[in-house]
């Protein structure tokens, strides 16, 4: 069969300068600076993880298309590369090499091709891959945090040195003990301590409650010492491979906005909701949270500019996009503040992806010239 000239594609068929290929490679270019930062802070291992993930994604896409007897040229339109990069950006830098391979293959085969390929997937494949890895390997996915720049000091096995730090943390809440964990992890632990303190207070153990409360605020103090805004902006902190370097991610996003690929409503409503919620509920009381910390510390910059704004799985109407951003922001912060996980970015986007068709249906714009029916 000859597919060179006439490929069947989804509507619309009106031609523009933009093509899937161009958009996807723009996104790849926008994502690359953050990879440089990840390699600088977490070592060549991070680069290897991204490379493996991308290679697996493209190979899985190719094999799926071959198996389903569809034109294999779709495998090289760049969308698999983006999925591979995003999946790798969403795993801790200390994971074993086979983990991103497995996640990437799952993302493409189950998340994308099983639904019919690009444009038919109902949720973001990379995030589905991450959710799959979180459900399958909860320990590996929440403990492989590499402390930034440690690899150059000869400690090339982050798995040994930075396993789970919670125990040490409870014993000595000083700045050094928290270098490996992500800032949000540490914050979560301080809130957990607050909760135990309140419980002890109710039971009448006032001395224990006071001690737990002091420990919680000690941890928060150490956190503010270690994770300064500068460190968070540059990416000198523990975290998933691609989420840490805020400045370079923003530079990539700016490039996409200039190229007309990124629609600004989604990220703005998402990040705005996160910041507002953090200010109101994020602290230990009301209206004393730190919005900037919540925006910079987790994965919402990566999520907001590169995953909330995914063209396939988010609403197409302007109003719908704002609803999507606000909803995802609320879910993210509810999970962070009261949920079981320290970070809720990926799950919030997945959940909102599922109701995207519904949002689109209820925000359908009025057709011009249509007369409203009287009932």
């Amino acid at each position, binding site marked *: 069969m000859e597919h060179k000239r006439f490929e069947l594609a989804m509507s619309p068929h009106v031609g523009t300068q933009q093509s899937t290929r161009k958009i996807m490679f723009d996104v790849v270019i926008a994502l690359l600076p953050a990879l440089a930062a990840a390699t600088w802070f977490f070592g060549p291992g991070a680069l290897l993880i991204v490379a493996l993930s991308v290679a697996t994604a493209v190979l899985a896409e190719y094999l799926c298309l071959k198996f389903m007897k569809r034109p294999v040229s779709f495998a090289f339109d760049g969308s698999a590369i983006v999925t591979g990069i995003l999946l790798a950006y969403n795993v801790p830098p200390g994971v074993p090499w086979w983990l991103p391979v497995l996640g990437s293959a799952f993302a493409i085969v*189950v998340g994308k091709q099983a639904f019919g390929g690009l444009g038919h997937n109902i949720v973001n494949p990379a995030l589905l891959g991450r959710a*799959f890895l979180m*459900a*399958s*390997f*909860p320990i590996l996915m929440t403990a492989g945090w590499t402390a930034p720049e440690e690899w150059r000091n000869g400690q090339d096995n982050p798995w040994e040195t930075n396993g789970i730090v919670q125990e040490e943390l409870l014993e000595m809440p000083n700045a050094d003990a928290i270098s490996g964990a992500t800032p949000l992890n540490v914050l979560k632990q301080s809130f957990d301590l607050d909760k135990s303190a309140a419980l002890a207070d109710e039971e009448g153990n006032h001395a224990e409650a006071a001690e737990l409360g002091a420990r919680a605020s000690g941890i928060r103090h150490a956190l503010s010492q270690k994770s300064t805004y500068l460190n968070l902006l540059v990416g000198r902190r523990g975290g998933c491979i691609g989420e840490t370097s805020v400045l370079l991610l923003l530079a990539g996003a700016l490039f996409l906005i200039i190229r007309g690929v990124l629609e600004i409503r989604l990220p703005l409503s998402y990040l705005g909701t996160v910041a507002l919620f953090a200010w109101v509920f994020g602290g230990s009381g009301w209206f004393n949270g730190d919005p900037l910390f919540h925006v910079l510390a987790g994965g919402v910059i990566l999520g907001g500019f590169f995953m909330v704004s995914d063209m396939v799985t988010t609403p197409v109407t302007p109003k719908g996009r704002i609803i999507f951003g606000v909803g995802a922001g609320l879910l993210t912060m509810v999970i962070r503040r009261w949920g079981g996980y320290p970070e809720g970015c990926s799950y919030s986007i997945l959940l909102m992806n599922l109701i995207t068709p519904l949002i689109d249906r209820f925000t359908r714009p009025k057709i011009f010239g249509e007369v409203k029916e009287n009932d």
Partner: protein
Amino acid sequence: MSLMKDLTNGIYKENPVFKLALGMCPFLAVTTSVENALGMGAAATFVLIASNFLVSLFRNLIPSKVRIPCYIVIIATFVTLVDMVMHAYLPALHKSLGIFIPLIVVNCIILGRAEGFANRHPVLNSIADGIGMGVGFTMAMVVLATFRELLGNGTWLNMNVLGSAFRNQPLLIAILAPGAFILLSFIMGFFKILETRKGGRQ
């Protein structure tokens, strides 16, 4: 002749799970291990045969207006029997199947066969149908449980198959709820492909 057809009908051609998509609730819930699948399959098969037998026997006596309550009473009798016997002789299995044993009462395969087959066929054919459907259900559960136990725990019928290196980091999702749905859809897709290859597109 037709007895043989009724017997084999449920095993592949009208497999209650893969072809009719019935009985999904216990099917997805208890297939975390092959042992559970076999236990559930045996319990359901017994109830299926016994209820098919009684429903068929009384099919001319039961007034059609109250037939559903009558089926439920018959089925519930046998389910209670299975529940008590299992509790007495297989307490471990009883505990791991839990609520899903009493829930056999509302298993739509059993009610469906009572209404759809035993209601209008002679006793012997109904028993054959019960056996076939029960075996089909059990086989389907063992197939899914094989995948789930192998991937999620590295074992098959509690035998270590994939080695301890795998068992340290198994694909946990396979024995969680999402894994059941994902694997089920792959198996059903596989059967769909088989069907399409054999009979052409319908």
